[in-house]
């Protein structure tokens, strides 16, 4: 499934589209506070961009852009961010995931919550991104001979 697509149009368009998808994904993640969106959706888009690379650029190129092992690292990192945000408020005496206790004493609780949500959404996005690519890589590299 992961091989280079023989065709100039597809190659060029996909090269152009991938960054656009990724920017849009960032928008989705960050704009989740005001409109439907957030980490899951954005993460899925990010993953989609990588999958597009995998479909069109072939192994060599797309593995250079996004190594197969990076999926695990990203997924773990995203989850780690989530957990650490939670534990950060624990460290300051609050409840787990109580963003009002985040270590940034100058801001008001609601502002802290606002940014807390943002950080958490970013963590989710990383996890979703990494995991979807991992699943694809696992299944995709196996189905070549099927």
């Amino acid at each position, binding site marked *: 499934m992961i091989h280079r697509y023989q065709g100039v149009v597809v190659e060029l368009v996909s090269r152009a589209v991938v960054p656009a998808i990724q920017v849009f994904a960032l928008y989705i993640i960050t704009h*989740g*506070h*005001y*409109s*439907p*969106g*957030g*980490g899951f959706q954005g993460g899925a888009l990010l993953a989609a961009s990588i999958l597009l690379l995998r479909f069109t650029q072939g192994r060599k190129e797309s593995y250079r852009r996004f190594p197969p092992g990076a*999926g*695990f690292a990203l*997924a*773990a990192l*995203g*989850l780690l961010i*989530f*957990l650490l945000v*939670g534990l950060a408020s624990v460290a300051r005496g609050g409840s*787990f*995931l109580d*963003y009002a206790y985040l270590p940034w004493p100058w801001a008001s*609780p*609601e*502002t802290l*919550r*606002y940014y*807390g*949500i943002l950080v*958490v*959404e970013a*963590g*989710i996005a990383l*996890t*979703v991104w*990494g*995991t*979807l690519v*991992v*699943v694809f890589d*696992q*299944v995709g590299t*196996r189905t070549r001979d099927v």
Partner: protein
Amino acid sequence: MKALALAILGIFLVVLLYAEGDLPDRGDPEAPASMHVSPYYIERSLSDTRTPNLVTAVLADYRGYDTLGETVVIFAAGLASALVLLRGRGNRDT
């Protein structure tokens, strides 16, 4: 096995149709679900979290821990599918 499966299906349908009578109507503003917990989110979200999107506010803050669990589920799925497909070199058990 088959009989068991169909029995489950039968019980399931009977239960669902039996329950139908006492479920609140669709869109009923007086339904318990709309009366009890959710008004709190609608009224407080903006002042608590400065987030107008209620779904995001509930998802990532009020019920943020569910979302952590959800992230773990995704993470678990990644690990799980990789674990299932892991295969050692020269260890093709077919």
